[in-house]
Structure formats: structure tokens, C-alpha cells
């Protein structure tokens, strides 16, 4: 079945980001379209994570513009980004370690819980109903990710692979339009990677979520993504379908090195 890639959802336009003298990103442009699986690849230190941080508002670029859902911005604010439907996971799992799997995923519902403090405090009436509805949504996600058995386990006690899955669950709970995954398969064995790939594709397919991911496993990237952008030293080297990128000479040079003679 051929999937339909839609309109441009997010476009970054001539983004430059520097930390003092270190240029993390230089003049980056690309578009992410609706329902796309978009991969950002590149050697270590290429600026991939910085790019995600710019998109969800952790970093504020010095130059350039971000257009998300048709609105131009100089920079995103992280709270706005979350409310506007950008969710993310982190390279070094950033979960709330003392809290259970369920509570962690429930935090993803916070932006969808609108009842005011008064009802919240009484835990009565509308607030209670709201809590239940959100709990149901979260239970669906738990089922989808097959983590029912660890629902009540504090996440600090879980193995790494499961923590990554819980983190994905928390991001999904936000019902995002754009899901940013920072190395979702890092440190996993083959089976866990296959599971994760399946989840990513299912999310894309079932919920119609647009996904932008950073990944080092080229096999995975080539298999699941619709479009790939390659960064190196903060600059964009190439952009295109997996096949185009695979054949690109500059990309091969960046990864394998070029002889200097």
C-alpha cells in the first residue's frame, strides 16, 4: 500500500545556531511533510540533536526561520511546541525516574487536561471524569507498546530498552502531529530494534503521525524512512530518498573519509 505524503508540516529556513565561536548549525533548510518518516543522519557531532532542539524550542537559533503549520516563527518556545503538537524523545532517556510507567505516560496528557485547579484539588466531578478519559487513552498506548506488565514499575528499575519504549509512550500520549525521535534504537539488540521499527512504522501508519528521527543504524534508516537529510559539521550535505542519499558521493566521503594526497 502506497502511503500518501501530504503538505509541508514544518519547514526550517536558513537556520544557523552558534554557541560562542562553535557553529553548531549553518544555514540549514529542509521541509518535513505530513505523514512522512524523515531521517536526519550524520557523523557524531554533526548537529543532529541541535537541529531537534531548535525544532522543539530548547535552542534558539541566531538566524533563520521556522514555519510550523503555516505559522512563521523566529524561534519555537518549548511549551508552545508541546501544545502545538510537537513531542520528542531524548538520546539519553529523559524519564521521570521515580515515577511509575503509568505516571510517566500520564504526564504526556497534561496538555490535554483542561480542568482548572479547583476541580483538580477536589478530585471531583469534571476533573475526575477527565482523569479517567485520559487514563483510558494512556491504557491504549500501553497496550499498543506492549508494556502492560510494567505499568506500575518505577521506570528507574527498567532495562534500557523498555525505558526507551516508555519514553516513546509518553511522547505518543501527547497525541503529537510531529514526533521527534532522537536515536530511538541506540543501544538496543536486534530484536529490540525490530520491535522499535515496528512501533515507529505503526505509529506513522495508524495515527498518521509525522516522524522525524535521528539514527545511526543505516539499515534501519534506509528501511523505514521516506526521506533522509545528511548533516556534517553543522552543514547540510545532501537530502533525498534513501536510495539517492546512498549513492551520493559527498555522503560516502563524509562517512568513510576521503584520502588526502
Amino acid at each position, binding site marked *: 500500500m502506497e502511503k500518501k505524503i501530504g503538505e509541508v508540516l514544518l519547514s526550517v529556513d536558513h537556520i544557523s545556531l552558534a554557541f560562542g565561536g562553535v557553529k553548531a548549525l549553518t544555514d540549514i533548510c529542509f521541509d518535513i511533510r505530513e505523514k512522512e518518516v524523515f531521517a536526519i543522519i550524520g557523523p557524531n557531532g554533526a548537529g543532529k540533536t541541535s537541529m531537534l532542539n531548535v525544532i*522543539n524550542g*530548547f535552542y534558539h537559533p541566531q538566524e533563520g526561520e521556522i514555519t510550523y503549520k503555516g505559522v512563521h516563527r523566529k524561534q519555537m518556545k*518549548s*511549551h508552545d*511546541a*508541546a*501544545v502545538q503538537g510537537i*513531542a*520528542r524523545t*531524548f538520546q539519553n532517556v*529523559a*524519564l*521521570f*525516574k*521515580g*515515577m511509575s510507567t503509568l*505516571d510517566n505516560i*500520564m*504526564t*504526556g496528557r*497534561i*496538555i490535554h*487536561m483542561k*480542568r482548572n*485547579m479547583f476541580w*483538580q*484539588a*477536589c*478530585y471531583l466531578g469534571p*476533573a475526575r471524569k477527565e*482523569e479517567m478519559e485520559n487514563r483510558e487513552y494512556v491504557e491504549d498506548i500501553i497496550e499498543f507498546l506492549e508494556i502492560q506488565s510494567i505499568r506500575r514499575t*518505577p521506570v*528507574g*528499575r*527498567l*532495562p534500557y530498552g523498555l525505558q526507551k519504549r516508555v519514553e516513546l509512550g*509518553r*511522547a505518543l*500520549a*501527547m497525541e503529537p502531529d510531529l514526533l521527534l525521535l532522537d536515536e530511538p534504537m541506540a543501544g538496543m539488540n536486534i530484536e529490540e530494534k525490530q520491535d522499535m521499527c515496528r512501533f515507529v512504522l505503526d505509529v506513522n501508519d495508524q495515527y498518521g503521525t509525522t516522524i522525524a528521527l535521528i539514527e545511526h543504524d543505516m539499515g534501519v534508516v534506509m528501511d523505514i524512512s521516506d526521506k533522509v537529510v545528511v548533516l556534517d559539521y553543522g552543514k547540510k550535505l545532501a537530502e533525498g530518498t534513501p536510495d539517492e542519499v546512498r549513492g551520493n558521493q559527498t555522503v560516502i566521503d563524509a562517512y568513510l573519509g576521503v584520502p588526502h594526497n
Partner: protein
Amino acid sequence: MMQAFIFDPFMMMYDSPLFFVEVLVSGLMSGVMYALVALGFVLIFKASGVFNFAQGAMVLFAALTFVGLWELGVNPWLALILSAVTMIGVAFCVERIVLRPLVNQDPIIFFMATIGITYFLDGFGQTIWGSEVRPLDIGIPNEPFMDFAEWSGLYINKFDVFATVVCSVLVALLAGFFTKTKIGRALRAVADDHQAALSVGIPLKTIWTIVWSVAGIVGLAAGILWGSKLGVQFTLALIAFKALPVLILGGFTSIPGAIIGGLIIGSGEKIAEVYWGDAFGGAIEDWFAYVVALIFLLFRPQGLFGEKIIERV
């Protein structure tokens, strides 16, 4: 020697059970007041994972503002409201000037920042309102209920009962406000990981402002109650350190823990003072709580109700 430590105290309790009950009750009531101070710490600890060194200074500052306004001739109720507003203002400033630039820093850095806030508030409060001891009389007499005493033989202090009621109401409100639902969860999330909290759309700044405001208002209540017992003066800031053993007992993250810890410390130190005081040569009330906390740390470092720390290596 042995007799003084082991035998005599229990003989005394056996001989006059009524007196024992009196000691216990007055201990429990001062325990409630410790709990009130401890609550302020718990709130901020829950929302930032940091021991707020400035809680004592906030108690002092709030009480000074209240007494100061009252002495200027402001209606006491209005003074109460104005002091509460001042504490909310303090929370706004703390968030804007101190906390916001420190997002995503280590807890120890926040801790150092709260020490800075302590010095500032101590100095600022006394610069504005002066440093002499001010008596505070909120109109609740410090005397026992005589009718009740004649009927049962128990002397229970009116002021203590009033303080207990105020504390219980505050505690019940806070417990409702901060547990089970969205806010409680958001608080714990913020304490655990700033970046992750931001990424799920928890408004960090709002949460911090709310929590510091509430801690300030709890500090105001504690300041007024303690102030009318001891007079409003610099030593009020030191009362806050009595909250430390309470927190160690109850667990830094638990509201019920703060209350039960307060009750144990309050009654424990009164009973120890009255029955074992002579054996130690008196004045054990001052250090008893800290020794209990120390022993407690050996066996249950997370406190009675604290979250157990799990670290996967």
C-alpha cells in the same frame, strides 16, 4: 543511674497518667506546628528536588511583614491578605530572578541559590521592619480551657488547639491540592527532569511560581503562629531547622510524612524533656529531635514515606 534512665520515668507515667496525657497532647500540638514549617520544605522539594534553605527566612519575612503592617495601623485581616500578596510577589521574583536562569542545572546549584535567597530575605526584612523583637497577639489567649479542665482534670491550652485547627485545615487543603491529579504529577515531573518536563509541555515557570507562592503562604501561617508564641524576631528563621529532623523522619517528598514526622518529633521531645530531662541534666528538648533523626538515617534514609531511591547501574 540505671534507675534514673529506665525505672523512674515509667513510674512517673504510671503514677499520674493524666499528666502524661497532658504532656503528650502539648507535644502533639507543637508537633503540628513543626509539621507546618516542614510542609513548606516539602512543597519546594517536591517541585524542584531541592532543599529550600530559605524556608526559615520566608517564615521570618512573612511574619515581619504581617506584624509591621499591623503596627502601622492596617486592619489585621487586610494585613494578612497584604502579607500573602507580598509572599506571592516574593515567589514571582524568586522565579524570575533566581530560578529561571538556572533551568536544567544540578540540584546543588539550586541549593546554593536558596542560601543566597536566605541572606537576602533576612537582611531585607529587617532593613524594612527593624530587628527588635515584636510581640504578636492575635487574640487567642494562651490559657487552658477551664471548664474542660474541671470536668476531666486535663489542662489543654486554647492557643494550641487553635494552632492545631489552623494547621489541620491548611494541611488538608494542600494534600488535596497536590496529590493524585495533574498538578501533583506535574510537580514530580518537574522535580525529576526539567528538560523532559518541558518537552511534554509542563509550564515550568508557572509550576515554580505556584509552588513558591504556596510555600510562602504556608510560611506566613507558620510565622504568625510561632510568632505569637515566641514573638516575631530573628530566631523564627531558626525554627525552620527544627523542621529538618521532621523531614528526615517523614521523607522529604511526602505531605503526610511531614505531618506524622512533626507529631513524632513534637511529642517525642516533650516526653523526653519531662521524663528523661533530669537524668540527662535537663534541656534535652533542644537536641533530642536531631539525635532521633540521626538514628533514623541509619535505618531508613528515605524516611517513613519518602520515595525509595532506585538506581540502575
